[in-house]
Protein backbone atom coordinates (compact mmCIF):
# COMPACT_ATOMS: atom_id res chain seq x y z
CA UNK A 1 0.00 0.00 0.00
CA UNK A 2 1.21 3.51 -0.76
CA UNK A 3 2.80 5.48 2.01
CA UNK A 4 1.50 8.73 0.66
CA UNK A 5 -2.01 8.26 1.96
CA UNK A 6 -0.55 8.66 5.44
CA UNK A 7 -0.43 12.38 4.66
CA UNK A 8 -4.15 12.57 5.22
CA UNK A 9 -3.66 11.89 8.91
CA UNK A 10 -2.35 15.42 9.29
CA UNK A 11 -5.57 16.88 7.93
CA UNK A 12 -7.51 17.36 11.22
CA UNK A 13 -4.61 19.20 12.88
CA UNK A 14 -3.80 21.28 9.80
CA UNK A 15 -7.42 22.23 9.18
CA UNK A 16 -8.15 23.11 12.81
CA UNK A 17 -4.96 25.10 13.26
CA UNK A 18 -5.40 26.82 9.94
CA UNK A 19 -8.90 27.94 10.87
CA UNK A 20 -8.46 28.75 14.56
CA UNK A 21 -4.86 29.95 14.72
CA UNK A 22 -3.41 31.02 11.38
CA UNK A 23 -6.58 32.60 9.99
CA UNK A 24 -7.31 34.77 13.08
CA UNK A 25 -3.65 35.76 13.18
CA UNK A 26 -3.89 37.15 9.64
CA UNK A 27 -7.46 38.34 10.03
CA UNK A 28 -6.51 40.72 12.81
CA UNK A 29 -5.22 43.07 10.09
CA UNK A 30 -8.70 43.29 8.56
CA UNK A 31 -10.39 43.87 11.94
CA UNK A 32 -7.90 46.62 12.70
CA UNK A 33 -9.38 48.73 9.91
CA UNK A 34 -12.88 48.46 11.37
CA UNK A 35 -14.91 50.53 13.73
CA UNK A 36 -16.68 47.65 15.44
CA UNK A 37 -18.12 46.85 18.86
CA UNK A 38 -18.75 43.17 18.22
CA UNK A 39 -22.51 43.68 18.15
CA UNK A 40 -22.79 46.60 15.75
CA UNK A 41 -22.43 46.43 11.98
CA UNK A 42 -18.70 46.96 11.25
CA UNK A 43 -17.70 50.17 9.49
CA UNK A 44 -14.47 50.28 7.48
CA UNK A 45 -12.37 53.25 8.51
CA UNK A 46 -8.98 52.47 7.01
CA UNK A 47 -6.00 53.41 9.14
CA UNK A 48 -8.00 55.63 11.50
CA UNK A 49 -7.48 53.25 14.46
CA UNK A 50 -3.71 53.35 14.07
CA UNK A 51 -3.71 57.14 13.82
CA UNK A 52 -5.76 57.33 17.01
CA UNK A 53 -3.49 54.94 18.90
CA UNK A 54 -0.46 57.05 18.10
CA UNK A 55 -2.27 60.03 19.66
CA UNK A 56 -3.66 58.06 22.61
CA UNK A 57 -2.08 59.06 25.95
CA UNK A 58 -3.40 55.86 27.58
CA UNK A 59 -1.47 53.83 25.04
CA UNK A 60 1.78 55.58 25.86
CA UNK A 61 1.15 55.29 29.57
CA UNK A 62 0.58 51.54 29.34
CA UNK A 63 3.61 51.18 27.06
CA UNK A 64 5.69 52.93 29.72
CA UNK A 65 4.27 50.70 32.48
CA UNK A 66 4.96 47.60 30.39
CA UNK A 67 8.58 48.59 29.82
CA UNK A 68 9.12 49.38 33.51
CA UNK A 69 7.46 46.12 34.47
CA UNK A 70 9.53 44.20 31.92
CA UNK A 71 12.84 45.58 33.19
CA UNK A 72 11.76 45.11 36.81
CA UNK A 73 10.87 41.49 36.21
CA UNK A 74 13.41 40.33 33.69
CA UNK A 75 16.60 41.35 35.48
CA UNK A 76 15.89 39.57 38.78
CA UNK A 77 14.35 36.64 36.90
CA UNK A 78 17.45 35.98 34.81
CA UNK A 79 19.88 36.55 37.69
CA UNK A 80 17.89 34.32 40.02
CA UNK A 81 17.66 31.61 37.35
CA UNK A 82 21.44 31.60 36.93
CA UNK A 83 22.18 31.66 40.67
CA UNK A 84 19.71 28.89 41.43
CA UNK A 85 20.91 26.71 38.56
CA UNK A 86 24.50 27.10 39.79
CA UNK A 87 23.60 26.44 43.42
CA UNK A 88 21.49 23.41 42.49
CA UNK A 89 23.99 21.85 40.11
CA UNK A 90 25.06 18.43 41.36
CA UNK A 91 23.31 18.72 44.75
CA UNK A 92 21.51 15.65 46.10
CA UNK A 93 18.29 17.67 46.29
CA UNK A 94 18.54 18.99 42.73
CA UNK A 95 15.64 16.97 41.31
CA UNK A 96 13.01 17.47 44.03
CA UNK A 97 13.74 21.20 44.23
CA UNK A 98 13.49 21.58 40.46
CA UNK A 99 10.20 19.74 40.57
CA UNK A 100 8.93 22.10 43.25
CA UNK A 101 10.08 25.21 41.37
CA UNK A 102 8.28 23.99 38.28
CA UNK A 103 4.98 23.42 40.06
CA UNK A 104 3.63 27.02 40.19
CA UNK A 105 3.72 27.23 36.40
CA UNK A 106 1.32 24.35 36.00
CA UNK A 107 -1.17 24.72 38.82
CA UNK A 108 -4.51 26.40 38.52
CA UNK A 109 -3.95 30.09 37.90
CA UNK A 110 -7.17 31.13 39.61
CA UNK A 111 -6.30 29.05 42.65
CA UNK A 112 -2.78 30.40 42.79
CA UNK A 113 -4.00 33.99 42.77
CA UNK A 114 -6.47 33.21 45.54
CA UNK A 115 -3.58 31.93 47.67
CA UNK A 116 -1.51 35.01 46.88
CA UNK A 117 -4.39 37.35 47.45
CA UNK A 118 -5.48 35.93 50.79
CA UNK A 119 -1.86 35.82 51.89
CA UNK A 120 -0.63 39.23 50.74
CA UNK A 121 -3.69 41.47 50.66
CA UNK A 122 -2.91 44.45 52.92
CA UNK A 123 -6.56 44.68 53.91
CA UNK A 124 -7.67 41.09 54.34
CA UNK A 125 -4.42 39.16 54.05
CA UNK A 126 -3.06 36.69 56.56
CA UNK A 127 0.44 38.15 56.46
CA UNK A 128 -0.89 41.61 57.27
CA UNK A 129 -1.87 40.38 60.72
CA UNK A 130 1.72 39.33 61.42
CA UNK A 131 3.97 41.78 59.54
CA UNK A 132 3.18 45.11 57.87
CA UNK A 133 2.44 44.56 54.17
CA UNK A 134 3.07 47.45 51.74
CA UNK A 135 -0.22 48.96 50.57
CA UNK A 136 -0.14 47.63 47.04
CA UNK A 137 -3.83 48.37 46.74
CA UNK A 138 -2.96 52.08 46.93
CA UNK A 139 0.55 52.34 45.57
CA UNK A 140 1.13 51.58 41.88
CA UNK A 141 4.76 50.79 42.61
CA UNK A 142 4.01 48.07 45.15
CA UNK A 143 1.26 46.72 42.92
CA UNK A 144 3.85 46.28 40.16
CA UNK A 145 6.17 44.60 42.67
CA UNK A 146 3.40 42.17 43.57
CA UNK A 147 2.73 41.28 39.93
CA UNK A 148 6.47 40.95 39.38
CA UNK A 149 6.88 38.55 42.33
CA UNK A 150 3.90 36.52 41.12
CA UNK A 151 5.31 36.35 37.59
CA UNK A 152 8.74 35.25 38.82
CA UNK A 153 7.10 32.73 41.15
CA UNK A 154 5.26 31.18 38.22
CA UNK A 155 8.17 31.01 35.79
CA UNK A 156 11.31 30.53 37.87
CA UNK A 157 11.23 26.75 37.42
CA UNK A 158 11.41 27.11 33.67
CA UNK A 159 14.21 29.68 33.92
CA UNK A 160 16.28 27.39 36.13
CA UNK A 161 15.65 24.49 33.76
CA UNK A 162 16.90 26.47 30.76
CA UNK A 163 20.12 27.59 32.48
CA UNK A 164 20.63 24.19 34.07
CA UNK A 165 20.35 22.31 30.77
CA UNK A 166 23.04 24.56 29.33
CA UNK A 167 25.19 24.25 32.43
CA UNK A 168 25.21 20.48 32.15
CA UNK A 169 26.50 20.78 28.60
CA UNK A 170 29.69 22.53 29.75
CA UNK A 171 32.51 19.97 29.87
CA UNK A 172 33.82 19.54 33.41
CA UNK A 173 37.36 19.15 32.06
CA UNK A 174 37.29 22.80 31.03
CA UNK A 175 36.76 23.96 34.61
CA UNK A 176 39.28 21.45 35.93
CA UNK A 177 41.89 22.72 33.49
CA UNK A 178 41.22 26.28 34.66
CA UNK A 179 41.65 25.20 38.28
CA UNK A 180 44.95 23.52 37.43
CA UNK A 181 46.09 26.77 35.81
CA UNK A 182 45.38 28.52 39.08
CA UNK A 183 42.07 30.24 38.32
CA UNK A 184 39.87 31.03 41.30
CA UNK A 185 36.25 29.91 41.33
CA UNK A 186 35.15 33.47 40.59
CA UNK A 187 37.51 33.74 37.62
CA UNK A 188 36.40 30.39 36.25
CA UNK A 189 32.81 31.56 36.45
CA UNK A 190 33.54 34.93 34.87
CA UNK A 191 35.67 33.68 31.97
CA UNK A 192 34.37 30.17 31.30
CA UNK A 193 30.91 29.46 32.69
CA UNK A 194 29.26 32.82 32.02
CA UNK A 195 30.29 33.11 28.34
CA UNK A 196 29.15 29.55 27.72
CA UNK A 197 25.80 30.31 29.36
CA UNK A 198 25.22 33.15 26.94
CA UNK A 199 22.85 31.25 24.60
CA UNK A 200 20.66 30.27 27.54
CA UNK A 201 20.61 33.84 28.84
CA UNK A 202 19.77 35.20 25.38
CA UNK A 203 16.94 32.70 25.14
CA UNK A 204 15.55 33.68 28.55
CA UNK A 205 15.78 37.41 27.84
CA UNK A 206 14.01 37.10 24.50
CA UNK A 207 11.30 34.74 25.76
CA UNK A 208 10.89 36.86 28.89
CA UNK A 209 10.48 40.04 26.84
CA UNK A 210 7.88 38.43 24.63
CA UNK A 211 5.96 37.22 27.66
CA UNK A 212 6.06 40.55 29.49
CA UNK A 213 5.01 42.47 26.38
CA UNK A 214 2.06 40.18 25.84
CA UNK A 215 1.08 38.78 29.21
CA UNK A 216 -1.66 40.29 31.29
CA UNK A 217 -3.52 37.45 32.96
CA UNK A 218 -1.66 38.00 36.24
CA UNK A 219 -2.57 41.68 36.12
CA UNK A 220 -6.19 40.84 35.43
CA UNK A 221 -6.32 38.42 38.36
CA UNK A 222 -4.31 40.35 40.95
CA UNK A 223 -4.78 44.07 40.40
CA UNK A 224 -7.17 44.64 37.47
CA UNK A 225 -4.81 47.29 36.15
CA UNK A 226 -5.09 49.32 39.32
CA UNK A 227 -4.49 51.17 41.53
CA UNK A 228 -5.05 54.29 39.41
CA UNK A 229 -4.14 52.39 36.23
CA UNK A 230 -0.66 51.84 37.68
CA UNK A 231 -0.40 48.24 36.50
CA UNK A 232 -2.24 48.63 33.21
CA UNK A 233 0.22 46.82 30.95
CA UNK A 234 -0.30 46.77 27.17
CA UNK A 235 -2.03 43.40 27.12
CA UNK A 236 -4.46 44.49 29.78
CA UNK A 237 -5.15 47.75 27.97
CA UNK A 238 -5.92 45.67 24.88
CA UNK A 239 -8.32 43.47 26.82
CA UNK A 240 -10.01 46.46 28.43
CA UNK A 241 -10.56 48.45 25.23
CA UNK A 242 -11.75 45.38 23.38
CA UNK A 243 -14.02 43.66 25.83
CA UNK A 244 -14.86 46.09 28.61
CA UNK A 245 -15.18 49.27 26.56
CA UNK A 246 -16.28 47.35 23.47
CA UNK A 247 -13.99 48.84 20.81
CA UNK A 248 -12.90 45.69 19.04
CA UNK A 249 -11.50 47.39 15.95
CA UNK A 250 -9.30 49.60 18.08
CA UNK A 251 -8.21 46.58 20.10
CA UNK A 252 -7.32 44.74 16.89
CA UNK A 253 -5.08 47.62 15.84
CA UNK A 254 -3.49 47.50 19.31
CA UNK A 255 -2.86 43.79 18.79
CA UNK A 256 -0.99 44.50 15.57
CA UNK A 257 1.10 47.18 17.26
CA UNK A 258 1.95 44.90 20.19
CA UNK A 259 2.97 42.15 17.76
CA UNK A 260 5.23 44.54 15.86
CA UNK A 261 6.75 45.83 19.10
CA UNK A 262 7.41 42.28 20.25
CA UNK A 263 9.07 41.38 16.99
CA UNK A 264 11.27 44.49 17.03
CA UNK A 265 12.33 43.93 20.65
CA UNK A 266 13.05 40.25 20.21
CA UNK A 267 15.15 40.84 17.08
CA UNK A 268 17.08 43.73 18.60
CA UNK A 269 17.84 41.77 21.77
CA UNK A 270 18.89 38.62 19.97
CA UNK A 271 21.20 40.74 17.87
CA UNK A 272 22.66 42.76 20.73
CA UNK A 273 23.34 39.74 22.87
CA UNK A 274 24.95 37.91 20.00
CA UNK A 275 27.20 40.77 18.96
CA UNK A 276 28.45 41.50 22.45
CA UNK A 277 30.87 38.60 22.24
Amino acid at each position, binding site marked *: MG*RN*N*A*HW*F*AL*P*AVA*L*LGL*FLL*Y*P*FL*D*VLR*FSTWDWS*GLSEPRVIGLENYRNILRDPDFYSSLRITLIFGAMTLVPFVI*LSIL*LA*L*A*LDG*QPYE*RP*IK*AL*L*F*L*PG*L*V*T*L*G*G*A*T*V*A*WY*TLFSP*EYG*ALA*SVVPVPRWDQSPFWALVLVMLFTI*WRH*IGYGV*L*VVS*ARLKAIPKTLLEAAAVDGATAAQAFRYITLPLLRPAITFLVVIGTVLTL*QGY*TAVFLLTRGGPFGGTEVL*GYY*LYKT*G*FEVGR*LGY*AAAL*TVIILLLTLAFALAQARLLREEK
Partner: protein
Amino acid sequence: MRWLGHLLVWTVALLVALPFIWMAYAAFIPPEAVFSGNIFGQLGFSLANFEVLGRGGFWEGFWGRLLFSVLLTGGVTLLQLTTGFLAAYAIKEGAKILPFFLVLLAIPVELLLVPLYGLLVGLRILDTLWALVLPFAASPFIVYLLFQGMRTVPEELLEAARLDGAGHRVLLTRILLPLLRPQLIAAGVLAFAAHWNLVLYPRIVAGSKELQTVQTWITDLQRQNPADWGPLSAAALAATLPLVIIYLLYERRIVETFEEGLKG
Protein backbone atom coordinates in the same frame (compact mmCIF):
# COMPACT_ATOMS: atom_id res chain seq x y z
CA MET B 1 30.64 29.87 49.57
CA ARG B 2 28.88 26.52 49.48
CA TRP B 3 26.57 27.24 52.41
CA LEU B 4 25.45 30.42 50.65
CA GLY B 5 24.20 28.26 47.77
CA HIS B 6 22.29 26.00 50.16
CA LEU B 7 20.81 29.02 51.86
CA LEU B 8 19.66 30.54 48.57
CA VAL B 9 18.11 27.31 47.33
CA TRP B 10 16.20 26.60 50.52
CA THR B 11 15.03 30.19 50.95
CA VAL B 12 13.66 30.29 47.41
CA ALA B 13 12.15 26.81 47.78
CA LEU B 14 10.38 27.89 50.95
CA LEU B 15 9.05 31.07 49.34
CA VAL B 16 7.85 29.14 46.29
CA ALA B 17 6.11 26.59 48.49
CA LEU B 18 4.60 29.19 50.83
CA PRO B 19 1.42 29.96 48.83
CA PHE B 20 0.73 26.21 48.52
CA ILE B 21 1.25 25.60 52.23
CA TRP B 22 -0.95 28.56 53.03
CA MET B 23 -3.66 27.40 50.63
CA ALA B 24 -3.77 23.96 52.25
CA TYR B 25 -3.81 25.49 55.72
CA ALA B 26 -6.43 28.15 55.02
CA ALA B 27 -8.80 25.68 53.39
CA PHE B 28 -9.27 23.92 56.73
CA ILE B 29 -9.35 26.97 59.01
CA PRO B 30 -12.46 26.95 61.19
CA PRO B 31 -14.61 29.96 60.19
CA GLU B 32 -14.60 31.27 63.80
CA ALA B 33 -10.81 31.65 63.68
CA VAL B 34 -11.04 33.89 60.62
CA PHE B 35 -13.69 36.13 62.15
CA SER B 36 -11.83 36.49 65.43
CA GLY B 37 -8.71 37.45 63.48
CA ASN B 38 -6.71 34.84 65.36
CA ILE B 39 -5.59 32.66 62.45
CA PHE B 40 -2.28 31.36 63.68
CA GLY B 41 -3.01 31.29 67.41
CA GLN B 42 -5.38 28.37 67.62
CA LEU B 43 -4.82 25.45 65.35
CA GLY B 44 -8.09 24.05 64.20
CA PHE B 45 -9.30 21.68 61.59
CA SER B 46 -12.67 22.06 59.97
CA LEU B 47 -14.41 20.97 56.82
CA ALA B 48 -16.94 23.78 57.10
CA ASN B 49 -15.35 25.67 54.21
CA PHE B 50 -15.94 22.77 51.86
CA GLU B 51 -19.53 22.51 52.98
CA VAL B 52 -20.06 26.17 52.09
CA LEU B 53 -18.93 25.39 48.53
CA GLY B 54 -21.69 22.84 48.14
CA ARG B 55 -24.47 25.37 48.73
CA GLY B 56 -26.80 26.32 45.92
CA GLY B 57 -27.70 24.00 43.07
CA PHE B 58 -25.12 21.37 42.27
CA TRP B 59 -24.63 22.22 38.62
CA GLU B 60 -24.35 25.97 39.26
CA GLY B 61 -22.26 25.56 42.40
CA PHE B 62 -18.58 24.84 42.84
CA TRP B 63 -18.60 21.04 42.55
CA GLY B 64 -20.68 21.14 39.39
CA ARG B 65 -18.31 23.65 37.85
CA LEU B 66 -15.34 21.53 38.87
CA LEU B 67 -16.88 18.45 37.25
CA PHE B 68 -17.75 20.42 34.12
CA SER B 69 -14.19 21.77 33.86
CA VAL B 70 -12.61 18.35 34.38
CA LEU B 71 -14.79 16.84 31.65
CA LEU B 72 -14.29 19.78 29.28
CA THR B 73 -10.53 20.03 29.71
CA GLY B 74 -10.16 16.24 29.71
CA GLY B 75 -12.07 16.04 26.43
CA VAL B 76 -10.04 18.84 24.87
CA THR B 77 -6.83 17.12 25.98
CA LEU B 78 -7.88 13.85 24.34
CA LEU B 79 -8.74 15.72 21.13
CA GLN B 80 -5.38 17.49 21.13
CA LEU B 81 -3.52 14.26 21.68
CA THR B 82 -5.48 12.53 18.91
CA THR B 83 -5.01 15.23 16.29
CA GLY B 84 -1.39 15.68 17.37
CA PHE B 85 -0.64 11.96 17.29
CA LEU B 86 -2.11 11.58 13.79
CA ALA B 87 -0.27 14.64 12.49
CA ALA B 88 3.01 13.47 14.01
CA TYR B 89 2.49 10.12 12.28
CA ALA B 90 1.90 11.84 8.94
CA ILE B 91 5.14 13.80 9.36
CA LYS B 92 7.01 10.66 10.33
CA GLU B 93 5.63 9.03 7.18
CA GLY B 94 7.06 11.80 5.05
CA ALA B 95 4.47 14.59 4.92
CA LYS B 96 6.56 17.75 4.67
CA ILE B 97 4.48 19.93 6.98
CA LEU B 98 6.68 20.23 10.06
CA PRO B 99 7.61 23.86 9.15
CA PHE B 100 3.91 24.76 9.12
CA PHE B 101 3.60 23.68 12.76
CA LEU B 102 6.87 25.32 13.77
CA VAL B 103 5.71 28.65 12.35
CA LEU B 104 2.42 28.31 14.22
CA LEU B 105 4.37 27.73 17.45
CA ALA B 106 5.53 31.35 17.25
CA ILE B 107 2.00 32.78 17.16
CA PRO B 108 1.10 34.21 20.57
CA VAL B 109 -2.33 32.77 21.32
CA GLU B 110 -2.92 35.13 24.23
CA LEU B 111 -2.97 38.07 21.83
CA LEU B 112 -5.53 36.58 19.46
CA LEU B 113 -8.58 37.31 21.60
CA VAL B 114 -10.01 39.92 19.25
CA PRO B 115 -9.77 38.10 15.89
CA LEU B 116 -10.78 34.81 17.50
CA TYR B 117 -13.83 36.49 18.93
CA GLY B 118 -14.64 37.80 15.45
CA LEU B 119 -14.23 34.35 13.97
CA LEU B 120 -16.50 32.75 16.57
CA VAL B 121 -19.14 35.39 15.87
CA GLY B 122 -18.83 34.63 12.15
CA LEU B 123 -19.17 30.88 12.71
CA ARG B 124 -22.12 31.52 15.04
CA ILE B 125 -20.60 29.45 17.85
CA LEU B 126 -20.00 32.27 20.30
CA ASP B 127 -21.31 31.33 23.75
CA THR B 128 -21.59 27.64 22.91
CA LEU B 129 -19.56 24.67 24.09
CA TRP B 130 -17.81 24.64 20.70
CA ALA B 131 -16.17 27.99 21.47
CA LEU B 132 -14.36 26.31 24.37
CA VAL B 133 -13.44 23.18 22.42
CA LEU B 134 -12.72 23.80 18.73
CA PRO B 135 -9.99 26.46 19.01
CA PHE B 136 -8.07 24.05 21.26
CA ALA B 137 -8.72 20.80 19.41
CA ALA B 138 -5.22 20.90 17.92
CA SER B 139 -1.97 22.40 19.19
CA PRO B 140 1.29 22.91 17.29
CA PHE B 141 3.20 22.38 20.52
CA ILE B 142 1.67 18.93 21.04
CA VAL B 143 2.31 17.97 17.41
CA TYR B 144 5.93 19.00 17.88
CA LEU B 145 6.35 17.10 21.15
CA LEU B 146 4.83 13.92 19.76
CA PHE B 147 6.86 14.14 16.59
CA GLN B 148 10.01 14.44 18.70
CA GLY B 149 8.96 11.22 20.36
CA MET B 150 8.19 9.45 17.10
CA ARG B 151 11.57 10.36 15.68
CA THR B 152 13.16 7.99 18.19
CA VAL B 153 11.15 5.01 16.91
CA PRO B 154 13.40 3.05 14.53
CA GLU B 155 12.14 3.00 10.94
CA GLU B 156 13.05 -0.71 10.63
CA LEU B 157 10.46 -1.57 13.25
CA LEU B 158 7.68 0.04 11.22
CA GLU B 159 9.06 -1.40 7.98
CA ALA B 160 9.02 -4.93 9.44
CA ALA B 161 5.45 -4.50 10.61
CA ARG B 162 4.46 -3.20 7.19
CA LEU B 163 5.98 -6.24 5.49
CA ASP B 164 3.83 -8.37 7.77
CA GLY B 165 0.85 -6.59 6.27
CA ALA B 166 0.17 -4.09 9.04
CA GLY B 167 -1.87 -1.06 7.92
CA HIS B 168 -1.94 2.43 9.38
CA ARG B 169 -4.42 1.42 12.04
CA VAL B 170 -2.26 -1.41 13.36
CA LEU B 171 0.91 0.68 13.21
CA LEU B 172 -0.73 3.50 15.10
CA THR B 173 -2.56 1.57 17.78
CA ARG B 174 -0.39 -1.52 18.30
CA ILE B 175 3.11 -0.14 17.83
CA LEU B 176 3.33 3.63 18.11
CA LEU B 177 0.73 4.13 20.83
CA PRO B 178 2.46 1.92 23.43
CA LEU B 179 5.93 3.17 22.42
CA LEU B 180 4.91 6.81 22.77
CA ARG B 181 3.16 6.39 26.10
CA PRO B 182 5.67 8.56 28.03
CA GLN B 183 5.49 11.40 25.50
CA LEU B 184 1.70 11.17 25.37
CA ILE B 185 1.50 11.43 29.15
CA ALA B 186 3.81 14.44 29.31
CA ALA B 187 2.04 16.14 26.40
CA GLY B 188 -1.32 15.31 27.97
CA VAL B 189 -0.43 16.89 31.31
CA LEU B 190 0.85 20.04 29.61
CA ALA B 191 -2.21 20.26 27.35
CA PHE B 192 -4.50 19.75 30.32
CA ALA B 193 -2.75 22.44 32.37
CA ALA B 194 -2.81 24.92 29.49
CA HIS B 195 -6.55 24.58 28.92
CA TRP B 196 -7.36 24.35 32.62
CA ASN B 197 -5.57 27.65 33.20
CA LEU B 198 -7.44 29.70 30.64
CA VAL B 199 -8.89 32.66 32.50
CA LEU B 200 -9.85 35.48 30.18
CA TYR B 201 -10.76 33.50 27.11
CA PRO B 202 -13.70 31.49 28.58
CA ARG B 203 -15.00 34.64 30.24
CA ILE B 204 -15.21 36.36 26.88
CA VAL B 205 -16.39 33.68 24.48
CA ALA B 206 -18.63 31.63 26.76
CA GLY B 207 -20.15 33.85 29.40
CA SER B 208 -23.35 31.99 30.18
CA LYS B 209 -23.78 30.26 33.54
CA GLU B 210 -23.92 26.69 32.27
CA LEU B 211 -20.57 27.11 30.44
CA GLN B 212 -18.74 28.72 33.35
CA THR B 213 -15.41 27.04 34.11
CA VAL B 214 -14.07 26.55 37.60
CA GLN B 215 -11.48 29.32 37.03
CA THR B 216 -14.20 31.84 36.27
CA TRP B 217 -16.19 30.63 39.25
CA ILE B 218 -13.27 31.13 41.63
CA THR B 219 -12.28 34.54 40.26
CA ASP B 220 -15.90 35.69 40.54
CA LEU B 221 -16.07 34.52 44.16
CA GLN B 222 -12.82 36.31 44.88
CA ARG B 223 -14.25 39.50 43.43
CA GLN B 224 -17.44 39.25 45.47
CA ASN B 225 -16.02 38.12 48.83
CA PRO B 226 -12.32 38.99 48.95
CA ALA B 227 -12.24 38.63 52.75
CA ASP B 228 -13.86 35.21 52.88
CA TRP B 229 -10.64 33.21 52.75
CA GLY B 230 -11.96 29.95 54.08
CA PRO B 231 -14.27 29.00 51.22
CA LEU B 232 -11.97 30.75 48.72
CA SER B 233 -8.99 28.66 49.80
CA ALA B 234 -11.07 25.50 49.89
CA ALA B 235 -12.17 26.14 46.30
CA ALA B 236 -8.61 26.98 45.25
CA LEU B 237 -7.29 23.81 46.87
CA ALA B 238 -9.94 21.59 45.33
CA ALA B 239 -9.30 23.12 41.89
CA THR B 240 -5.52 22.83 42.24
CA LEU B 241 -5.16 19.42 43.81
CA PRO B 242 -6.02 17.36 40.69
CA LEU B 243 -3.23 19.06 38.74
CA VAL B 244 -0.74 18.77 41.58
CA ILE B 245 -1.40 15.05 41.94
CA ILE B 246 -1.10 14.39 38.20
CA TYR B 247 2.06 16.48 38.14
CA LEU B 248 3.66 14.69 41.08
CA LEU B 249 2.88 11.32 39.49
CA TYR B 250 4.56 12.24 36.22
CA GLU B 251 6.95 14.97 37.39
CA ARG B 252 10.11 13.24 36.15
CA ARG B 253 8.62 12.68 32.71
CA ILE B 254 7.39 16.27 32.37
CA VAL B 255 10.62 17.92 33.44
CA GLU B 256 12.56 15.61 31.12
CA THR B 257 10.28 16.51 28.23
CA PHE B 258 11.07 20.17 28.78
CA GLU B 259 14.77 19.43 29.00
CA GLU B 260 14.66 17.47 25.73
CA GLY B 261 12.74 20.31 24.13
CA LEU B 262 15.51 22.71 25.12
CA LYS B 263 18.13 20.61 23.38
CA GLY B 264 16.23 20.61 20.08
